[in-house]
């Protein structure tokens, strides 16, 4: 058992990597918010600030060849998958250098290289797709696993249960990660869900579910390892309900009238995933304030570079409107 990655002690280097990965998402999203405010990002933009521990902890549980698919709050997932911040930021600004060459925008980005299957703007629509990706793994007799992320709001979509049923019936290697940030757009879980303990939503499909503190990257990782092992060993799907929180509005146009400022401040002050890990690292003597400041400085440089790239990259050529529609239509 000591060789199981789940049980192995987490090294300082790993912890520092989690810190860096979470901080990259935080700083990237802060900058995206600023660019939005300056009119450089148009349309929709859903920030991941507050939820960083979920994706960073989960990504540590998978390896090359495993797949990731998520909804529209997707910037953090892409960065955690190792996608280049330049390409993500340039897609936000709708430029040729973006991951979808400006055709997708904030909600619709992909990377074949990183096995990242989007970026889906319709609530819950990615859940059957992730299930189908898992089917491909089983069909091809690989031991790959698909992480399928969705929010608490998506758990009320009918097609999610269609997917649960098929995944359990066919024992597909998929982990359903419910990012319960407490609000489906502006509607709190209590006001949108008859059963608010969302990890129980798989019971009638015989899918095991776990509730996880999604503000603690170590706890996320621990639960993630268990779920990924379960799926990889052929036992079928598992559900992880990550109790998390988003500090910003649902989107940039959200006045956030549905919750009190004190609620946000309380979580920020007492449960922030990045501050939490920082405290652990310093208290355990694994890093100094200065070490962590140096990391922040490096990350800010990476993000600043992505902003430059996203502004310098040209807009797509007008003829690009007609490409990637149907294969035959190219060059028309």
């Amino acid at each position, binding site marked *: 058992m000591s060789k199981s990655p789940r049980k192995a002690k987490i090294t300082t280097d790993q912890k520092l990597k989690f810190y860096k990965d979470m901080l990259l998402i935080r700083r990237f999203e802060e900058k995206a918010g600023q660019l939005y405010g300056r009119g450089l990002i148009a349309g929709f933009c859903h920030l991941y600030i507050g939820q960083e521990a979920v994706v960073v902890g989960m990504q540590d549980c998978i390896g090359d060849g495993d797949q990731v698919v998520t909804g529209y709050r997707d910037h953090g997932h892409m960065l955690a998958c190792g996608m280049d911040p330049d390409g993500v930021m340039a897609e936000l600004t709708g430029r040729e250098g973006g991951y979808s060459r400006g055709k997708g925008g904030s909600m619709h980005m*992909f990377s074949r290289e990183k096995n990242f*299957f*989007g970026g889906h703007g319709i609530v819950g629509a990615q859940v*059957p*797709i992730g*299930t189908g990706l898992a*089917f491909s793994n089983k069909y091809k007799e690989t031991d790959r696993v698909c992480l399928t992320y969705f929010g608490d709001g998506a758990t009320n979509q009918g097609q999610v249960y*269609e997917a649960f049923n098929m995944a359990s019936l066919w024992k597909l290697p998929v982990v359903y990660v419910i990012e319960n940030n407490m609000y489906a757009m502006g509607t709190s879980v209590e006001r949108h869900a008859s059963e608010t303990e969302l990890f129980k939503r798989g019971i009638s499909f015989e899918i095991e579910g776990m509730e996880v503190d999604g503000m603690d990257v170590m706890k996320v990782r621990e639960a993630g390892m268990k779920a990924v092992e379960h799926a990889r060993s052929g036992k079928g799907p598992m559900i992880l309900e990550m109790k998390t929180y988003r500090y910003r509005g649902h989107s940039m146009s959200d006045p956030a009238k549905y919750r009190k400022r004190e609620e946000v401040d309380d979580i920020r002050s007492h449960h922030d995933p990045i501050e939490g890990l920082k405290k652990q690292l310093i208290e355990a003597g694994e890093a100094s304030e200065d070490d962590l400041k140096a990391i922040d400085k490096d990350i800010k440089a990476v993000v600043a570079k992505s902003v430059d790239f996203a502004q310098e990259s040209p807009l797509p050529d007008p003829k690009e409107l007609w490409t990637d529609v149907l294969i*035959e239509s190219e060059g028309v």
Partner: protein
Amino acid sequence: MAKKTMIEAIRDAHHIAMEADEKVVVFGEDVGYFGGVFRCTAGLQEKFGKARCFDAPICEGGIVGAAIGMAAYGLRPCIEIQFADYAYPAYDQIVSEAARLRHRSGGQFTAPMVIRMPTGGGIFGGQTHSQSPEALFAHVSGLKTVIPSTPYDAKGLLLASIEDNDPVIFLEPKRLYNGPFDGEHDKSIVPWSKHDDAEVPDGHYTVPLGKAKIVREGKDVTILAYGTMVHVAKKTAEDQGIDAEVIDLRTLVPLDTETIAQSVQKTGRCVVVHEATRTCGYGAELVSIVNELCFWALEAPVERVTGWDTPYPHSQEWDYFPGPKRLGAALNQIMEA
């Protein structure tokens, strides 16, 4: 060369595609063990195993969504929606995901998949088992929409669709499954065995997507038709003694505008027919295209013969269906203009 029904031709195409490429998987409601409610997938599970041909729960959105995930990761699913009317629960997945994956990923991912569905009326299915929703698919950029009218075309078009790298909606006129129905509903069914286009070669062949077929040559008026209405159009032209050229469009997207334009420029008259409801039906698109490409050659306004703008009826099926009488009246009218 053997004569086959459209069902047998479709089944044959499945066998060939699955033999040729193990990435082809076939599933849907009752598709595996039972072989499909119309028997189009009979024998596939016995031959290729449960991993490649299997039953899905009754959940069209989930079925299409799962197929998109499979297609994005290297498989080529050919799935059945049991009736075209059941595509509505899956419409989100078809429109927002299957059709759009390629564009929104900047060409990184595609969804090479076929969604087969029996379409149209003529079997007293009432409003939820008789509709012709082709315009809802043809309207969606990123999809191809195919509709055969003969066993020969059904096999060749289905193989071409499975081999195509774009998502294809494959509509099978269910009234044609067992015979070339020409609209004479009170007469006994003529089986495919008595029809020339039921000659289906063994082995692999394709009918290219985007190529219409002139199924009856004529010089006085062009009839644009697809699916069941192709047979109605041929029969009506013969009965009325009108020298009509009947074009079977075979694929609605991409559309063979060249064949249409050549014919209408020759005849100077055009009648557009479909079983679907009239308003915003595919016929409206055809009329536009004919006007755009052939306006100065037209001797008369383009006529439309369609289903009425009503829910598909049950007992009044034949009042709804645009059969030989309505088409005949339109042909006579346009010839007098």
